[in-house]
């Protein structure tokens, strides 16, 4: 997997840890379920990331955002556009300043929009070209809506 962060091809330091596995990396991403069950232990970790599925209701988890330095928005299928709203709200309403990463079945041709709603890193699918993924962020020079990037 290639990772684009802040428009640059980057080495991924983060690892998603399955719910039944022990934390083993310096930078761990856990599921919301695991966070809810084990928040006291997990919040002691310095670099904690969390993965939100697309049915997350962001306003229900606002109080916890301060514990996370990365939020991964997992897109189950590219037609599911909820992550666009989640990212926008995380940035503009809840002022989350950490990395917001998108993963799953998003497509290269959605990166332009994802970037504009505040996604800062992209876990590319294997067939996608990193160069192209960076280039499409500049497909348009004119917009009608504010960006929260």
């Amino acid at each position, binding site marked *: 997997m290639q990772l684009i962060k802040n428009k640059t091809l980057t080495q991924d330091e983060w690892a998603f840890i399955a719910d039944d596995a022990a934390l083993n990396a310096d930078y761990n991403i856990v599921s919301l379920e695991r966070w809810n069950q084990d928040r006291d232990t997990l919040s002691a970790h310095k670099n904690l990331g969390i993965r939100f599925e697309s049915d997350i209701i962001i306003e229900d988890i606002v109080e916890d955002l301060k514990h996370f330095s990365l939020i991964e928005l997992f897109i189950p299928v*590219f*037609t599911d*556009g909820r992550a*666009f709203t989640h990212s926008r709200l995380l940035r503009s309403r809840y002022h989350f300043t950490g990395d917001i990463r998108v993963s799953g079945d998003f*497509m290269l041709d959605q990166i332009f929009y994802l970037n504009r709603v505040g996604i800062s890193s992209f876990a590319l699918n294997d067939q996608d070209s990193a160069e192209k993924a960076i280039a499409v962020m500049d*497909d348009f020079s004119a917009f*009608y809506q504010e960006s929260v990037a």
Partner: protein
Amino acid sequence: MYQYTDKDQNLINERVDQFRDQTQRFLKGEIADDKYRALRLMNGVYVQTHSPLLRVAGPYGLLSSAQIRKLASIARDYDKNFCHFTTRQNIQFNWPALERIPDMLEELASVQMHAIQTSGNCLRNTTSDQLAGVAKDELEDPRPYCEIIRQWTILHPEFAYLPRKFKIAVSGSAQDRAATHFHDIGLHLVKNDAGEVGFKVLVGGGLGRTPVIGQVIRPFLEKKHLLSYLEAILRVYNIYGRRDNKYRARIKILVREAGLAEVTKKVEAEWALIKDQLELSEQSIADMRVQFADPAYAAITETDANYTSSLANDSAFNTWVKHNTEEHKITGYRAAYVSLKAPDSPPGDCSDTQLDALADLADSYSFGMIRATHRQNLVLADIKEADLFALWKKLDALKLATPNIGKATDMICCPGLDYCALANAGSIDVAQGINDTLDSMDYIHDLGDLKINISGCMNGCAHQSVGHIGILGVDKKGVEWYQVTLGGSSENDATIGERLGPAVSKEDIAPVVKTLLEVYVEQRINEDEAFLTTFRRVGVSPFKEKVYAAN
């Protein structure tokens, strides 16, 4: 008419480049079919029975003569010399080659046109009243707000992958000519008790498989809050709209399942958080209204004598003026409908030569502007009464003066099996059959206002559920059958039609329509009682008895 700024032009040019790149990557096999499908749909490209179809946006139905000429040249150069006007004021080309569609889009961009978001699960083209700006019953011209909405919807990054398509219509008149009760969001310009003009906001209307009449979510919205309120509705829909079943994904289903009260509560709560961020300034509204200022009307004080004598002496002209023209807010002018419902032509189709000629007529008589209507006709909105006779002669020579606007043969019809991959049954040939049958009835012109809408499948592109007579094609074991509904309306008295009874066969549908009209003529109190009024008074029974006794 709104003129593009450099920013608007750059955006659509860049969209053409983007789609050209996407199409080339698809043709090289670099984009999967299902993913390219979503991308092409958001550029108006369907793949249908014979070839792709390109749907071009007609923003709130308003087109310049230069744009009409461009449609004509595209019809010649890329298609089979015609295009089709849809029920959402858009324009379709039925026979383009996929690899040439980027070139078509580039040509369209040269006249400030595009096909952005004319399909797909996104914010669609905003529609309006074809008589906007000229109607006598208008409170305020809705088009400046349509253009503000158009810009807000175009490439909105948050709402490009909605649960389902999303349609907005705006009306500024007492009489709703934009079917606002049947849109995901319907906006009516209204005056509040303090005399301020704002919007009544309807939500959750729609046609298709589950026709629903929109409900009022906010009786009065200040103009400055237009975009923040739309954004609040869209955000609630994007998060809470169903994504598990595409037939349950429209906002009307969210409103039905969660209830209007719950949806309203969520929207109002969301809106409270954003209303100050997206405020429209008075200046920005005023600037947009200037773009739609009245053309330079002549001051006419006396009725033209030649017009009066032509009306008196030429009964064909008189009939056309009566059926195909409408009062105008300026004395001495009328709005003239161009009927795209000639008996021998598919409803809504227009040839390249007709388009070119219409562009010339618009330049000569109507300030170079043409409007598309949601009943698949066109309007030349600013015709001097003194010019009507000459205009009629020219339209008649072009077969564009069939005096049937709002009458039995002014049918709305989808492309049906002839073109559409979704269709279960033919619709153009049914319209043709009904036309032939009605043609043989000598009192056809005395049938008054009558809206017959024919769709070839449950998706209901021709709005059959709000037709006075609605006809829906269904497939039963490979055979085309037709369900009939009566009494629908998309206007102020919004109503969903009532089922007549069991579906009828293709060969019976035209005779059934004839029978329905005979029952109406028997039942009506007098010639002034319209079909819809008679139906509402007598109910479905007399129609049902006669149809199923006879067939």
